């Protein structure tokens, strides 16, 4: 009996300081400096605690605010939605995408920012009309859209396999299949076993953007403009031909059989350990020093080449479909800030400051003379300190000029980045197109993906393609989506 009491007593004693923590901290916020909290998707593990976030502290000091960035990775949208519905939205938060932004505006949880643009003169001068448009709903500004990152993707292949088999870089679709066949059947790793595949990927039927590009089209789910009309990828005749070509690759046995099941880094791991010779992906997955060390530990001979686009029928070539209105995040100011002037002013100061030259230097390169040195107005990163500031990308709320930044900060990225920028791409417009009111595209997406998978793997004959499109229009309401797209693109001035 006594032991039970002692146990209870001990547990309660332990409980006291813990419970006290909750109350004490919430009571301590009554200072003159306004607290500005920004919430967005981020790298929770890599983001230092508030006390250790030296750049956050510096921002607080320079702007006379109490600033904190709270990254969330798991169930981001749900957390934000519950906080909005519960009447406790963060001061500033990221809307997951355009439709999420529209929903937040409809819930009256977003502050309309047009009237405050004069308080952010740097944003006003640096952001183009297109940049601002990404944060607009029905012509009104409800979010500040982070300037986008650049294109980082291309086909990456094992350079040592090209050398071992004396292969040339593929220039046409025929060359491309020949390379994949050689990678699969000619023992590129020289181990005497047939244990390799030509290509793998991590994005299911969308794993091969340049193949769609060679047929003059883009991957599933994307919108392009042809003949002054919005065109949904699968309805483009080129798309069917690209699917037929990919089916040919699958039939030839040169595609990783787990293509549809690969997740996260599964595909790049297969390239690293020599199961597959090629994949489409971001170049830094293979070029970053820490990844390079890992790769060399598995196979010291492994080397990588970036592949140029291949040309298809009529000499067409293109890499990925690239959203002309893409953004790396839409930052919404909570409508509750209308009544919290000090916090709103602080948040506006913060967003404007991280866009100025001085603020950009802080959120790109860290602290002067600690993480970088200033030479002729240019920040020279101190190499051994670069690791400490990898988390800063989360504080770059208005984005950055990606190209000069990466070229300057990461010497290893220079060559591949320059290469990837030269690849031709097809403009797509997904960021402009709203979901139609009486149609749910997610049902359509699922059906579409299942059917294309069936076509690629031969469980449905390609002769059924027209019937598939017919179902897309009749059962899933694709026409409403097309009408919506045409209306949106017309309103934005992309269609005449």
């Amino acid at each position, binding site marked *: 009996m006594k032991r039970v009491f002692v146990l*209870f007593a001990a547990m309660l004693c332990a409980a006291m300081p813990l419970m006290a923590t909750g109350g004490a901290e919430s009571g301590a916020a009554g200072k003159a400096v306004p607290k500005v909290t920004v919430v967005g998707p981020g790298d929770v593990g890599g983001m230092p605690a508030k006390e250790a976030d030296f750049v956050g502290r510096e921002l607080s000091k320079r702007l006379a605010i109490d600033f904190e960035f709270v990254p969330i990775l798991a169930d981001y949208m749900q957390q934000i939605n519950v906080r909005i519905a519960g009447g406790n939205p963060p001061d500033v938060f990221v809307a997951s995408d355009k439709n999420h932004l529209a929903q937040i505006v409809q819930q009256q949880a977003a502050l309309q920012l047009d009237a405050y643009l004069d308080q952010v003169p740097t944003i006003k001068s640096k952001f183009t009309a297109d940049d601002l448009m990404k944060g607009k709903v029905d012509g009104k500004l409800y979010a500040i859209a982070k300037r986008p990152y650049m294109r980082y993707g291309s086909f990456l292949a094992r350079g040592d396999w090209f050398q071992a088999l004396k292969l040339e870089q593929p220039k046409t679709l025929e060359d491309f299949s020949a390379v994949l066949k050689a990678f699969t059947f000619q023992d590129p790793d020289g181990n005497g076993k047939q244990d390799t595949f030509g290509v793998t990927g991590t994005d299911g039927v969308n794993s091969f953007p340049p193949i769609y590009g060679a047929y003059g089209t883009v991957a599933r789910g994307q919108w392009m403009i042809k003949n002054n009309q919005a065109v949904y990828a699968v309805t483009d005749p080129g798309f069917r031909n690209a699917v037929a070509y990919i089916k040919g690759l699958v039939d030839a046995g040169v595609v990783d059989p787990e293509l549809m099941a690969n997740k996260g880094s599964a595909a790049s791991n297969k390239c690293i350990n020599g199961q597959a010779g090629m994949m489409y992906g971001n170049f830094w997955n293979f070029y970053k020093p820490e990844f390079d060390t*890992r790769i060399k530990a598995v196979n010291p001979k492994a080397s990588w080449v970036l592949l140029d686009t291949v040309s298809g029928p009529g000499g067409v070539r293109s890499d990925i479909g690239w959203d002309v209105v893409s953004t790396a995040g839409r930052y919404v100011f909570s409508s509750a800030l209308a009544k919290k002037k000090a916090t709103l002013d602080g948040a506006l100061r913060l967003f404007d400051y991280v866009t100025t030259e001085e603020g950009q230097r802080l959120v790109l390169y860290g602290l002067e003379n600690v993480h970088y040195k200033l030479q002729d107005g240019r920040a020279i990163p101190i190499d051994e300190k670069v690791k400490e500031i990898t988390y800063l990308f989360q504080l770059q709320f208005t984005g950055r000029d990606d190209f000069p930044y990466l070229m300057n900060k990461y010497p290893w990225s220079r060559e591949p980045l320059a290469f990837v920028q030269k690849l031709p791409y097809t403009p797509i417009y997904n960021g402009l197109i709203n979901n139609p009111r009486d149609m749910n595209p997610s049902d359509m997406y699922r059906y579409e993906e299942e059917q294309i998978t069936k076509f690629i793997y031969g469980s449905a004959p390609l002769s059924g393609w027209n019937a598939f499109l017919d179902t897309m229009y009749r059962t899933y309401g694709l026409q409403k989506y097309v009408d919506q797209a045409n209306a949106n693109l017309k309103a934005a001035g992309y269609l005449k």
Partner: protein
Amino acid sequence: MVKIRSSVSDRVFVAFVHAALGVTGMLVVLPFLYVIAVSLTPFSEVLRHGGFLLVPRQITFEAYVQFLTRSTIPKAYLVTVMLTLCGTAVNLILTTLLAYPLSRKTLPGRGALLVFIVVPMVFAGGIIPTYVIVRSLGLLDSYLSLILPGAVWTYNAIVMKTFFEGMEAGLLEAARIDGAGEFTVLFRIILPLSLPVMTTIGLFYGVAHWNQFFAPIMYLTTRGKYPLQPILREIIMGAENAAVDAVEYSVPPDTLKMAAVVMTALPVLLVYPFLQKHFTQGVLLGSLKG
């Protein structure tokens, strides 16, 4: 000793049972072995084996060092341990104080009270109403928000009530004749005899607190206050899909992911063997009388 001769069919049956149990056992053990093996192997070695191995060839604790040296981990451990201890203490006290009166048939309005606590077991309030209540009570961003909303689980209270009801009525009557009040009966007679049900229910509550994920991500707004599970989830999510599409972000390797799984699951696994004796007894006792 008399040896019972078993027929061929008996032996075939026994062999079949062994085989079936063996396979089931393997199904349970193999994933654990995989997780532990990957966490202890250098990542390059894992890749060389196509990402799958059950016995580590070279042992390294690199992934564990990586996990434990993350700036958020030590605090998260402290929070989780404290949350489990305090939360379980609060749970057990309040559950006992609810279950004991309900176990007394003489309690006025007992039937109505039972309906009152059983209905929410079937129809819960939902995420947003619960959030609004937590906010209105001023519990947001406080650890109390992780303890108070689930302070009594109806299911556990009913198991405990059933256990109390099963106690020898004469024992309690004898205490009363000796002049003991309700609290004396509860603390001097009932609780000392209730170790099995206390450990069982304590374990249910304890494990639930240890695994708290949803409440922290909903109610705690200060990042530094997170317990372990949300952080584990972030590490695993980071490896599952590169949700953060920036050059600077590096997807955590599988070895780190597995080390994180081991380090968060291990403490609970270690507690089970010590409580197993009471645990089995407690579950059975609670379930026999309805």
